């Protein structure tokens, strides 16, 4: 048994060495062969694009290559990239597009995806545009979540409306909206507790929070942003689906894109749920929020990790 698992490992090492060589060679202008397609499949799957999206994409590409009579793989590169960019552009739209007095933004997601840090970054983003921002600490559940948001509030220089740990998050939102209205706030960002989409009662709680905002402000929340961790695999689609069903997600922030993961699951999400990606985050600092650029994102998919590794 020991020897077998050793074999297993050395087998993998080999596959991996050839992996990087293959990516480098993929678009170098070799003849398009069966191997080219296999390499492409590997590349897309390893970027977390998922089996269905990958197979579908390869089929489309094969048809195109035949139709246009393309012979070498370099020609395939721009075809593929354009196609991927188009997928994302089809569903893209600006974040908070409408003029209004008070914008309410509800931020949701599974545990640890990066919600609170994203809110801090968004707070800075809005403040830098000269808008008056307020934060609502509606994660009253996780230990020290309120403190965490308060620290960020201080660093950005925006106020935080908070109750005691364990308080009703709906009540926090209620107060925060009241405060926003009386203080002439333009953007209210609501931090919610991380929750797995499989938890029925917690999803219900989120619906309630949303209901509170809806009642107080016309058409609120004006964005319901799902924060996805870029290192997440196929479950990201399930999360997006479930959060959308429950609270009507309007767009996505893809966090932790500074990791070596590629975040390829957003293609499946774009295709199935037509959700735009508003921002990506690329680090833990306040400035590391970037407006989503489909072209740059697609280029990133084809960058070698080994270059980023050490």
């Amino acid at each position, binding site marked *: 048994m020991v020897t077998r*698992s050793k074999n297993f490992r050395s087998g993998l090492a080999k*596959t991996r060495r050839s992996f990087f060589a293959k990516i480098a060679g993929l678009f170098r202008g070799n003849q398009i062969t069966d191997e080219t397609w296999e390499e492409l499949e590997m590349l897309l799957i390893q970027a*977390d694009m998922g089996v269905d999206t990958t197979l579908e994409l390869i089929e489309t590409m094969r048809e195109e290559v035949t139709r246009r009579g393309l012979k070498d793989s370099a020609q395939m590169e721009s075809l593929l990239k354009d196609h991927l960019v188009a997928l994302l552009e089809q569903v893209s739209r600006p974040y908070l597009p409408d003029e209004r007095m008070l914008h309410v933004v509800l931020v949701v997601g599974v545990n640890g995806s990066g919600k609170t840090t994203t809110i801090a970054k968004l707070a800075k983003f809005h403040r830098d545009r000269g808008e008056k921002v307020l934060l609502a600490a509606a994660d009253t559940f996780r230990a020290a979540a309120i403190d*965490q948001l308060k620290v960020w509030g201080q660093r950005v220089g925006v106020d935080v409306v908070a109750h005691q740990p364990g308080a009703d998050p709906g009540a926090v939102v209620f107060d925060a909206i009241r405060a926003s209205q009386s203080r002439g706030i333009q953007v209210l960002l609501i931090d919610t507790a991380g929750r797995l989409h499989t938890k029925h009662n917690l999803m219900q709680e989120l619906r309630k929070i949303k209901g509170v905002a809806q009642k107080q402000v016309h058409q609120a929340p004006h964005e319901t942003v799902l924060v996805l961790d870029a290192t997440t695999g196929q479950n990201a689609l399930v999360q997006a689906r479930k959060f959308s069903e429950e609270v009507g997600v309007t767009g996505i922030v893809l966090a932790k894109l500074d990791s070596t993961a590629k975040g390829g699951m957003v293609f499946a999400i774009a295709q199935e749920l037509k959700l735009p990606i508003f921002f990506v985050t690329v680090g833990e600092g306040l400035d590391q929020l970037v407006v989503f650029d489909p072209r740059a994102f697609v280029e990133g998919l084809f960058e070698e990790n080994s270059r980023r590794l050490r």
Partner: protein
Amino acid sequence: MFEALSEKIQEAFQKLARKGRLSEADVQQALREVRLALLEADVNYRVVKEFTKRVRERAVGEEVLRSLTPTQTVIKIVHEELIQLLGEPAKLDLGGTPPAALMLVGLQGSGKTTMAAKLAVYLRKQGQRPLLVAADTYRPAAVAQLETLGKQINVPVHSEGTKVAPPEICRNALRKARREGFTVLLLDTAGRLQIDEPMMAELEEIRRVINPREVLLVIDAMTGQEAVAVAEEFNRRVALTGLILTKVDGDARGGAALSIRAVTGIPIKFMGVGERPSDLEPFYPDRLASRILGMGDVLTLIERAEEAFSEEQACKMEEKLRTASFTLEDFIEQLRAIRQMGPLEELLGMIPGFQQLTKQLPAEVTERGLVVTEAIINSMTPEERRNPKIINASRKRRIARGSGTTVQQVNQLLRQFNQMQQMMKRMQKGQRGRGMGMMPWLR
């Protein structure tokens, strides 16, 4: 077992069966399905490739080609190989002179702090005296988070704010532990990317000054293809001794754990299954293997059912089923309990083979079915519920009106209930009911 995958393999073989004997190429076709299932479960591409190669060797070698039930044989081989690859559940190593230090490492947001608290509770139950150490000085309020958890579970926390360097904090904690007779030190380190050079150097430093018994990589069950690269690099820098999978209470298939185990050989030690400090489970290879293959999660279903139905209720129900004295009143009581377990769709998703089915059901059809059934029964008088035979045409019209349904719907329910009773009587006589028939109200 593993019905979703079984069905696909069966299909693959069926297409081939007409040709007579299975050939090597045919097995290849079936293995394609295995391969796709594993990729869908986030098992790393390289690992899948290597894994299917191994399965192929065994499958082509002998068993499958000669087998009369090739589908089952393939599944059996896959399952066996998966379990073997996942390895035996491993215990924590607390040997040597106390205090034994356990160091938790991992990416941002993987669940280290919560896991530290869970391990503290677990170890205390084993008679240890744990000390939690707040070595994350970077994330805002990380120290406060651990302190709060420490208070909740009543385990002391060593913290020095955010101005002292983490290796220094750990060293001081070790001294304190020696001085005050703590037997286990749980180091909660900051989340970091494996490519963050200064932060990885800091981990090496902590490892050097503390010489921990265990360096545990905490990894999110939802992690995708990069899990392997992450684990390999952490392993290279700080020599991991174990793996902990978190957020297993979600519905991610958890292929990341298999990938890491396959590539690094590090044993899996625990699984986090909820947000409370008590939500910690040992690792069961067969459970994880089934989950990765998309077999559904019958065990979770059983656990939820146990939560929803009290022991007493269960006994009463069993008695009724046995004596076939099960009434519509009992039926609605059961329905209510089932609905407490969560949305029906989700519950069905845990049953093997039902995952595909629930995907095909138009959203909420089943959930709505339950609501209608409940409404109809609610509109009956207690007498009618106990003895549905008395429900004549005019009663049916009244019930339909009261529940906002039609007489047809009422008829349908009564018919189904009648079938169910017949079935119970048969079961009583030792005949077994047929699968779906057990739940006629689902149709």
